[in-house]
């Protein structure tokens, strides 16, 4: 995340300052969509939607791919990296818990072994 420079944050901030563009991101979070589908959903012209998508694309929030005559929009790398960062934080929480659990299991093993030794005696 460190590699994002101030200009990227500016671009991202500008992209997110518009309610329609925030709506587009929310929509793409549910599923990929073509420009035509997005234009219909947000009741705007194809040209208008293309402009919004271009702003989001420049901010790295949306990626597009043209297959045949259809341009499909999806969440961009930036969003995917946010998800990866969340997963890493979540992994660290569980790692910290499990490291502590290791110590509990070790102690239970010792207690059980000692109890076993005692019964043998």
């Amino acid at each position, binding site marked *: 995340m460190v590699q994002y420079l101030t200009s990227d944050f500016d671009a991202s901030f500008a992209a997110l300052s518009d309610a329609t563009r925030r709506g587009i991101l929310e929509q793409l979070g549910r599923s990929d969509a073509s420009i035509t589908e997005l234009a219909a959903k947000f009741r705007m012209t194809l040209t208008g939607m293309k402009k919004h998508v271009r702003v989001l694309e420049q901010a790295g929030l949306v990626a597009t791919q043209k297959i045949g005559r259809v341009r499909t929009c999806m969440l961009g790398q930036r969003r995917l990296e946010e998800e990866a960062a969340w997963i890493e934080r979540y992994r660290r929480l569980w790692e910290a*818990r499990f*490291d502590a659990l290791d110590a*509990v299991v070790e102690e239970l093993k010792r207690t059980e072994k000692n109890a076993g030794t005692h019964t043998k005696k």
Partner: protein
Amino acid sequence: MKNPTTVERTSDRELLVTRTFNGPAHLVFAAWTRPELLKRWWAPQSFGITFIACEVDPRTGGTYRFVFGHPSSEQPLEFFGKYLEVTPHSRLVWTNEEGGEGGAVTTVTFEERGAETRVVMHDLYPSKEALDDAMASGSTCGFTEAFEQLDVLLVTPGASAEQP
């Protein structure tokens, strides 16, 4: 050497956490179901979290309630739900109801392999939106600030040394 912990988003609605422990399943299972043992690992010291309450009734239909305190939060964090299945030494299934309808169902399996036990924890959310929301709000862990503290700890040599 610590065993690795892995986390993977296996689908739009699922998260999978896996870890192997160097002990038999009945001991690992006990550590997941006995409150006095749960208290010793569920709220890691390195995260600055403390247990305020740890109530568990580990049987099918039983409930649980965990309440945590954290210096960064005025309100205690509460997690609660119901055990849908408790099969000794092999399987635990519980609901996560603190977040309302968007809560996941957690299934934990304990698989004994020789002297080790592999634990697989599976979170199934009701929808893709529910998991996305949980990720966006951090509600799955609720300890965002704690993670930052951990980041500091992780780069401090000796910080991971075992507590007495």
